[in-house]
């Protein structure tokens, strides 16, 4: 059934990386392990955005809201209720997907720019409520000291937990994007009018994509809680949403794993540059400008373009 989806060479490569990632906590100091775990969480978030952005050309300008909703839901359930912890973990993505469905349903009636604007306003509303509702959400302080299951409360165990969930999610996303659902989504991206003419209910399809994307954003939110043990209103703020946007572009938004690369680059740069200077935003701005002028398809997109002709010959040679 899954024959030919991915070739042996790539599988070996991925396997090698996985093994490397698994043994790293035994070698690297805490600082790097923490940063890697943060990269994992951010990668998942960026990948979730790219489901609708790169593969669907839906201008989800405020994707961060769903990340924040997932994180806050889990945080609130773990710290304010005595319900079983796994329930809190599951509630996060579901809440994110429900909010995604609600906001998506309102926004999907509109075209691109208006879609983005309405989403920003709805998202800002949620941010404003979370920011001010001190009693419930901790206001601008956020919530700290969230109790976590002892199994994953140490940094190393959190690292492994996050890595495992990330891999599962990536596999799921890969299958989804390579499925008929995914190829129809990409067709909608390229020519929504034609898709309508061939019988696709474009709005409903896009809405389904949004629900999927926001679900995985919620998962990323839960992973954030596992890693940090706290949540802040910044997770819901629009600047974060734009940063995720940039990660997708940086890595290559028309590729599958581009966002992962983008997230890795952004998080590591931010961490390392932050050691030397407090003007990280300036550097990020310059990088973005360089990207716009010289690498509009992103880093991975650029490399794929250079090596794609060879890849296609290989594919045709295999008779696919």
């Amino acid at each position: 059934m899954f024959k030919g989806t991915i070739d042996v060479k790539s599988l070996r490569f991925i396997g090698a990386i996985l093994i490397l990632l698994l043994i790293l906590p035994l070698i690297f100091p805490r600082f790097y392990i923490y940063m890697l775990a943060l990269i994992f969480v951010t990668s998942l978030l960026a990948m979730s955005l790219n489901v609708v952005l790169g593969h669907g050309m839906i201008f989800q300008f405020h994707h961060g809201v769903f990340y924040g909703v997932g994180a806050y839901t889990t945080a609130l359930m773990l710290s304010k209720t005595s319900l079983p912890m796994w329930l809190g973990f599951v509630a996060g993505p579901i809440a994110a997907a429900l909010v995604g469905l609600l906001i998506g349903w309102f926004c999907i009636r509109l075209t691109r720019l208006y879609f983005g604007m309405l989403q920003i306003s709805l998202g800002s509303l949620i941010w404003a409520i979370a920011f001010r509702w001190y009693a419930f959400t901790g206001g601008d302080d956020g919530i700290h000291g969230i109790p976590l299951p002892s199994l994953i409360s140490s940094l190393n165990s959190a690292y492994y937990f996050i890595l495992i969930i990330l891999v599962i999610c990536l596999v799921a996303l890969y299958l989804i994007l390579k499925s008929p659902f995914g190829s129809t989504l990409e067709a909608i991206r390229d020519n929504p009018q034609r898709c309508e003419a061939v019988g696709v209910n474009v709005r409903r399809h896009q809405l389904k994509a949004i629900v999927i994307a926001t679900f995985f954003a919620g998962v990323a939110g839960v992973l954030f809680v596992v890693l940090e043990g706290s949540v802040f209103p910044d997770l819901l703020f629009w600047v974060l949403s734009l940063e995720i946007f940039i990660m997708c572009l940086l890595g290559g938004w028309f590729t599958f794993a581009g966002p992962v690369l983008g997230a890795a680059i952004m998080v590591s740069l931010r961490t390392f540059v932050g050691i030397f200077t407090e003007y990280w935003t300036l550097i990020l701005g310059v990088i973005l400008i360089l990207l716009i002028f010289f690498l509009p398809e992103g880093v991975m997109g650029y490399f794929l373009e250079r090596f794609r002709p060879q890849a296609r010959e290989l594919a045709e040679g295999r008779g696919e």
Partner: protein
Amino acid sequence: MELGQGLDLASLGSQLLVGLSRAMILFVVCAGLSFVLGVLRVPNVAHGSLYMIGAFAAYSIFRFFGSSTAGFWLALILAPFVVALVSLIAERALFCHLYQREHLMLLLFTFALMLIFGDLVKLTWGPEYCSVVPPKMLRGSISVFGSSLPRYNFFLLIVGPLVAIALWFFTNKTKIGKVSRAAAVDREMVGVIGINVSWVFAAAFVIGCYLAGLGGALVVPTVSVCLGMDHDIIIEAFLIVTIGGLGNMWGALVGSLIFGVTQSLGVLFWPQFAIVFPYAAVVIVLLLRPRGLLKSVW
């Protein structure tokens, strides 16, 4: 949950006036954003940063002239030109090369500008709060509806409509203005009749940024000037421009009034969640009229 106290006509009236004067500043800023949006069809994310630069520049000019009355007025006049100059440099050096690209790239470019300007401001002025005291004639307050309203707010209530009139005059009566309006609707046609579209865009961009700077200079006596002003104002400006109708100057006015008034009323009725009122108003407007209240330019 506690409701604001003093819910009588006097406080209602004065809060309304406060809201209206705040709306005037929002209007000046949003008119600029809307203008650029209308002509270039790109929402300028850096608009808030230019507002902030205007505020800081006004502060510096004010201090340069010994914090005097003359200094205040000079700051008000010169600061927007400083901002216009900065925007002209950015436009001619980088922005104009992107006009052929898709709008998403232009949007991202303005976002990059926002990041860069934000840190440049931090570099130049540091992270402290700055404040400016208005000249004597605008200090203090006037008694109205039984409570006091700062004089400076009245000043704003006069300046706002003046800017509106000046803008209207500009877009309808001057050649540049009319050409800009034409370019907003059909840039190819404008190019065909021999006008350099690139220069039209440059002019529109600079004018829009000038207004951002003016808004920043005007707001200075009423708030503490600090980093983060750009983040706060840009979201509000975007939302206002969207509910007003993209590119529509009167829409920017209507949107600003709605935003400013709901915010000040929110302070009166539910101080803790005052900030939610304008956002909720925006959401309601967009749900009922997703394309904005007034017609968008395109």
